[in-house]
């Protein structure tokens, strides 16, 4: 069992569940299975923490009509949660700092990239993030080269955005992404299956071979 340290709102429907780490090891990009004692439900969430953090942060979208996420959001400091894992192979296997990484995410699919970037601060990367609303933009000063695509709330000019941003889905902005197509780059895609599938098609059409494309699906 692990104790909750804090619940931090990340704007919109997203929040960060911060829990004790208790020396739990993981590779940036992996996910854990979380549950609440006494409730027979678990769900998989990716860590956003860096390897050096003393706690574990999970980026979670509170799903309307969801089964576990709303219960997680209501947890209080010192409440206990179950953590199993880590799982998954969506991580940088042979770190090569000379390579450039293109990270493409939708929604909370950004989580593994946050962990990878925080853990490898000299990494050469571009991060592209598709969100529904302004509120879903991820805020962390450590994240550079961050471009956001906003599919709803397109005209909310009252919100100040410091990141580069575009209207529309990430998959409606292939013209912009075209300049990031290079055979020597590595492409990591994480998010819902239709975004990943469409992005895959886009990369394939641009002659990027599958050994340079790595995917993780969220659902």
């Amino acid at each position, binding site marked *: 069992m692990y104790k909750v340290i804090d619940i931090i709102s990340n704007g919109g429907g997203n929040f960060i569940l911060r829990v004790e780490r208790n020396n739990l090891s993981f590779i940036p990009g992996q996910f854990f299975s979380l549950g609440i004692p006494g409730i027979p439900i*678990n769900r998989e969430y990716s860590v956003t923490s860096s390897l050096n953090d003393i706690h574990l942060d999970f980026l979670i979208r509170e799903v309307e009509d969801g089964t576990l996420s709303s219960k997680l959001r209501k947890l209080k400091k010192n409440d206990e949660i179950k953590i199993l894992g880590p799982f998954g192979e969506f991580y940088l296997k042979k770190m090569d700092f000379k390579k450039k990484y293109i990270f493409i995410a939708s929604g909370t699919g950004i989580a593994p990239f946050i962990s990878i970037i925080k853990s490898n601060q000299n990494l050469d990367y571009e991060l592209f993030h598709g969100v529904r609303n302004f509120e879903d933009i991820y805020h962390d000063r450590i994240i550079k080269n961050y471009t956001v695509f906003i599919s709803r709330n397109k005209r909310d000019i009252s919100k100040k955005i410091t990141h580069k941003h575009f209207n529309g889905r990430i998959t409606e902005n292939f013209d912009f992404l075209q300049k990031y197509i290079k055979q020597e780059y590595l492409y990591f895609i994480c998010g819902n299956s239709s975004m990943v*599938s469409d992005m895959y098609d886009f990369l394939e059409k641009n002659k990027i*071979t599958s050994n340079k494309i790595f995917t993780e699906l969220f*659902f």
Partner: protein
Amino acid sequence: MKIAISFPPIINSLGQKAMVSQNRNVQYFSVPTYLLGIIHAQAATSLKEMGHDVLWDDGNAKLKSYDVWFHELVEFKPKVILFESTTPVMKFIWNTVDQLKNKLPETIMIMSGYHSMKMPEETLKNSKTDVVLLSNHVDFLMKKLILELDLKNNNLENLEIDGVAYVKKNKEIINNKSFKKVENINNSSIIDRDLVEWKNYAYENGNFLQVPGTYATSVIRDCTFGKCTFCRYNGPEISFSIMQIKKSVDEYENLINNYHVKEIFDDSGVWYRGSDARNFAKEIISRGLHKKNCYFGFNTRFEYLDEETIKLLSEANFRFVLIGLESGNDITLEKLKKGYTRETVKETLRLLTKYNLHPHLTIMVGYYWETKEMLNDTVSFVKYLMFSGLARTLQVTLCTPLDYTPYHQECIDKKLMLTEDYNDHDMSKLIVKTPINHEEYYRAIKEMYSIAFHPKFILRQIKFLLNFKKRDWQFLITYSFRAIRRVRQHIFNLTNASKLKKNET
């Protein structure tokens, strides 16, 4: 183009048959279960939709002898034959391909399946196979491949599509290694039931309480979790894809109203969960399909469904829930990367049985690390679950390394394999070094299967009748008979079949 999607009859010297179909383990049984290979059936459907002359050629389900099957396939004179393979029948399939190639030298032989997908060069070298599919999206890939073959007049030189390994005329093997891992399953075909002669699979299946039953077009291809080390749905080249609820319920409606199906099982690695599962149940109810005397079933994982969802599924007339327990020992569950512990198993089962669903547990023994204590944990836990009525049926098998899954690779890397003969991977005996004598695992299997004959178990089934649900009466009368037949068969296999040499042709 004439295209055959072929499953040769595989029969051993005892007359037992083996089925090969999509992430299902090959076992030899005298009373076989005829399973429809869903993705291959979708491939057949989409090729037919493209205008090709497609032969769904399942020699097992059509009750053909090998000779009759072979003769009729040669007579059909296909331009292309698609096979499916898995480790225990690789040698058999290679031999079959070679025999067919002698009779049909111009026919392109295509191999699919998880074994050849991981080791394509092996199949291309050891048989006259022309093309190996490197993706589990057989339907998507076959469409692209047939389009290209059509354009090139069946010439195998310089194929441009991704996801294939093939042999050129000069015998050079080309493996492009590259393929799209994520396909949008909403663009796949719903199975043409008439094309695949669905009735051949509608009766001989122990999981159906009512017949005719059928398997739905899977709503999730592969597995949403996809990390269990022994499973084929694992690895960076395997991903998953989810179908829209409406598309699936449309198929259920068609199967019930036009094919008069009485039980539908979705064999997705893991079925919908959360709001998707609830919305599916609501859609079934809103169309009145829950009142059409048809049960529904699916595979799931422990801790994937909450009480509200289970209650809704029950209202929608869901019955059969297949869950991989795998072990009653937490160390084993952790090594398998199952993502749950035995403590949480009971609560999920309690909820399922509270709402009158019938959980079916799949269990394995004989892991290379499994000690006597771990094995006893599993046996005693399974007994507890069955005697207390938390599970209704079970299936126990020997954990057999297959198709170069992570578990298989671990066994190879640790030099634990006791055989290099693929024929030995048929689950009739243990083929890895273990901490205790193999006989101990076989005894454990027999002990768990014998639960079906134990007075405590039978009494528990009788108590279920107090629910006054039709399904419980059916279970006791019809299903018990079938279960006992199958239990006897499993026990027979463990005592006799492993001694037999498989008839390879």
